[in-house]
């Protein structure tokens, strides 16, 4: 600890706002000035912004070595309403810094990779102008994720939580004018957004419940949503409320971390460019759910019922997604389902209370899954370059199958890339073996730790995970054999070209991390466990058992899981190498695309179609919802409300009343009376006019008669 003592560690903590500020600065520069920079400038700024926040995270990590308990740094008063006080405060402790290191480190590597990848991608898709937009989104994503992990309270975390949701929407539908019918990618982005909103609804309900039941207990009645405050108050709250809160949080987790039943958005999210898949769907955003449960461990540890649910959801998801991955042909979709499955491992681990194991697997998974996604991107671009080459060569072009569209992501179009893309092959192999759990790569240690914990804590979950682990090894073997071994199945694959150094160098770094990462928490040393220990100490003392403590290394589990992994790979080798060779005498287009199809029959169709879960949701939720919307819009709003109530009743009644007022009443009675008077006087005048004869004697006579009458009257009256 000599280093940290000389550094006066605590000072570094005050740098924490910069993990958020640097990416924000980067994105602002690119947003407003990027158009004068060109691709190199934009890429450099974005990478520097991300890299700077990684360096801050490293400094924070060094500071934590001296002051492991960390601290909370209030930055500004954000919202204050009555008994609610939300601060924009940063939490620096080993857990948040672990996440910052992963987000910053892996994120920066992906940024560097993306500079090379997007250079080709924006040209391939025909819109180089989007290069800048991509990196603005990318930095925004890093900023949002950093807010999420550096937050000291649930509401600030929620801002980051929503921010990454927004960024995933923006990035998944990055090529919004591409895809099926020109809207396929946009729909994928929309799906991710909506499914995540369902999860966020759970998060919000949990937050409201928290406010309602924690606020009266808070000191001075001022509730801040602070993690520590929640952890301290949680034991005083009735267990049923904690169960409700934790289960609603679990709903949020299933949305963000793509667990059953809300996992459906993640495979579709592969519509985004490959670096997006790597950043969002392997390394950062989807791990937010695992992080959230780990953050809320004080509450989860109080309610075993909720913990059990979390573990079961994780375990079932792990197995479920692993089986689907077996039936996929899109190179990225296999990895997507693999991600869901691995997230299931993590969620199961944190559900069982094995928080360290879950976080450990999170970090390792970030390494090797980012590696796999990025390598897959390299493969895709290699094949695309091959396709380009073939299209410009008249003799080769004739040999292409006359298909409307060549899909460079379909593994059935690949094969034999081992010799064409050597670097990509080796890093991919390392990533696959790490994911499959082969000694001594990263995935072995973390997965093994989860299995060991499961062995001690929850046998049902153990079996789910073991079977899932077997499938993991199998589908990764299947993928590697289909993509890299055998002979090329198409011309573009035969002419694939290795990617540039800017792409392969991040891959090599990630491969090294995947190779050696496992030693971070090597059994008997437990560096990582010690590192995270301070977070969970309170819980251990709180009496919720020493679940968080590392369970010792178990040789039986280690050997068992290795055997399972090797078994899976061997089975894949047998099916995809040996059996494939038997059909070599057939011409290319008559060979079975997958030997499992004939072996499993309808089961394979079931897997290939992902258990028709999307279709099920479509029929159970989307269709009725659309029908209801249509009904409400067409029948209720338009036909009933607009046409009937407005047009018929209101307008009709108004028109009717107006017509009555205008017709019979105004014209008939009022005008009629006036006209009657007018006509009457006119008639009277016409009659009177006749008296005006102009003859003097007539006038004299009438005066005479009048006088007689008046005199007569006077006489009669007098008489």
């Amino acid at each position: 600890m000599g280093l940290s003592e000389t550094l006066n560690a605590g000072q570094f903590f005050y740098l924490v706002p910069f993990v958020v500020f640097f990416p924000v600065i980067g994105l602002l520069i690119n947003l407003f000035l990027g158009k004068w920079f060109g691709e190199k400038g934009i890429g450099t700024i974005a990478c520097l912004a991300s890299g700077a926040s990684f360096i801050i995270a490293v400094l924070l990590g060094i500071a934590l070595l001296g002051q492991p308990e960390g601290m909370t740094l209030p930055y500004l008063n954000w919202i204050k309403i009555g008994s609610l006080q939300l601060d924009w405060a940063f939490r620096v402790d080993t857990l948040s810094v672990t996440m910052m290191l992963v987000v910053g480190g892996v994120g920066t590597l992906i940024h560097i990779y993306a500079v090379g990848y997007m250079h080709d991608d924006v040209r391939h898709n025909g819109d180089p102008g989007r290069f800048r937009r991509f990196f603005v989104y990318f930095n925004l994503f890093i900023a949002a994720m950093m807010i999420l992990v550096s937050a000291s309270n649930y509401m600030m975390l929620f801002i980051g939580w929503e921010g990454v949701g927004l960024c995933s929407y923006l990035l998944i539908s990055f090529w919004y004018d591409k895809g099926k019918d020109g809207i396929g990618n946009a729909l994928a982005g929309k799906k991710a957004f909506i499914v995540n909103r369902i999860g966020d609804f759970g998060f919000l309900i949990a937050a409201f419940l928290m406010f309602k039941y924690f606020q009266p207990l808070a000191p001075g009645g001022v509730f801040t949503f602070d993690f520590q405050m929640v952890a301290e108050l949680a034991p005083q709250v009735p267990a049923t409320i904690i169960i409700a809160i934790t289960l609603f949080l679990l709903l949020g987790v299933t949305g963000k971390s793509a667990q059953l039943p809300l996992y459906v958005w993640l495979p579709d999210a592969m519509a985004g460019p490959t670096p997006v898949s790597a950043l969002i769907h392997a390394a950062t955003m989807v791990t937010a759910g695992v992080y959230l449960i780990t953050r809320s461990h004080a509450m989860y540890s109080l309610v075993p019922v909720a913990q059990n649910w979390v573990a079961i959801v994780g375990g079932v998801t792990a197995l479920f997604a692993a089986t689907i991955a077996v039936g996929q042909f899109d190179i990225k979709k296999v990895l997507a389902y693999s991600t869901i499955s691995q997230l299931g491992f993590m969620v199961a681990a944190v559900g069982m209370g094995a928080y360290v194991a879950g976080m450990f697997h999170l970090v390792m998974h970030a390494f090797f899954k980012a590696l796999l996604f990025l390598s897959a991107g390299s493969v895709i671009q290699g094949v695309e370059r091959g396709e380009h080459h073939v299209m410009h060569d008249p003799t080769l072009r004739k040999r292409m199958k006359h298909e409307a569209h060549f899909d460079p992501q379909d593994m059935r179009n690949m094969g034999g890339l081992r010799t064409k893309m050597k670097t990509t092959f080796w890093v991919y192999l390392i990533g696959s073996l790490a994911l499959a759990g082969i000694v001594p790569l990263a995935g072995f240690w973390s997965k093994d730790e989860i299995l060991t914990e499961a062995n001690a804590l929850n046998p049902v979950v153990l079996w789910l995970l073991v079977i899932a682990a077997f499938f993991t090894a199998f589908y990764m073997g299947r993928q590697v054999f289909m993509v890299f071994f055998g002979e090329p199945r198409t011309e573009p694959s035969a002419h694939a070209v290795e990617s540039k150094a800017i792409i392969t160098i991040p891959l090599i770094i990630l491969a090294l991390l995947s190779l050696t990462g496992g030693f971070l928490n090597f059994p008997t040393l437990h560096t990582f466990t010690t590192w995270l220990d301070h977070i969970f100490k309170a819980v251990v003392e709180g009496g919720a058992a020493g679940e968080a403590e590392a369970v010792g290394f178990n040789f039986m589990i280690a050997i068992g899981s290795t055997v399972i992994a090797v078994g899976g790979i061997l089975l894949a080798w047998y099916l995809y190498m040996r059996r494939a060779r038997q059909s070599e005498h057939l011409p290319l287009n008559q060979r079975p695309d997958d030997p499992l199809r004939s072996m499993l029959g309808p089961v394979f169709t079931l897997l290939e179609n992902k258990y028709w879960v999307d279709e099920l949701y479509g029929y159970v939720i989307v269709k009725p919802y659309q029908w209801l919307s249509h009904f409400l819009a067409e029948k209720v709003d338009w036909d009933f409300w607009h046409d009937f109530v407005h047009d018929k009743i209101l307008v009709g009644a108004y028109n009717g009343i107006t017509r009555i007022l205008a017709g019979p009443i105004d014209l008939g009675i009022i005008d009629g009376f006036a006209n009657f008077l007018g006509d009457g006087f006119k008639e009277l005048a016409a009659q009177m006019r006749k008296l005006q004869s102009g003859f003097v004697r007539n006038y004299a006579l009438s005066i005479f008669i009048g006088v007689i009458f008046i005199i007569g009257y006077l006489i009669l009256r007098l008489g």
Partner: protein
Amino acid sequence: MLPVHYYLGLSVILFIIGTLGVLIRRNAIVVFMSIELMLNAANLAFVAYALYWQSMNGQIFVFFIMTVAAAEVAIGLALIVTIFRTKASIDVDQISTLKG
């Protein structure tokens, strides 16, 4: 002294003759004279009553009526002369320009 009935009777007879003259005759001058006759009848009645009631009011009215009659004759004759000049007739039935 003669009773007042006699004067009044004469007045009524004169008035009726005047009225009939106005109503029946067409000659404007005759009509005019008939009006004078009616005025004289009224004067006679006033004077008779003035005597009867031993009051000066009737006598004063007679003066007024005679003044009005004089004025009327002056204007009326002027009108008749003018009408004759334009229409070459003083037949009152010919003069109906003011009919409605």
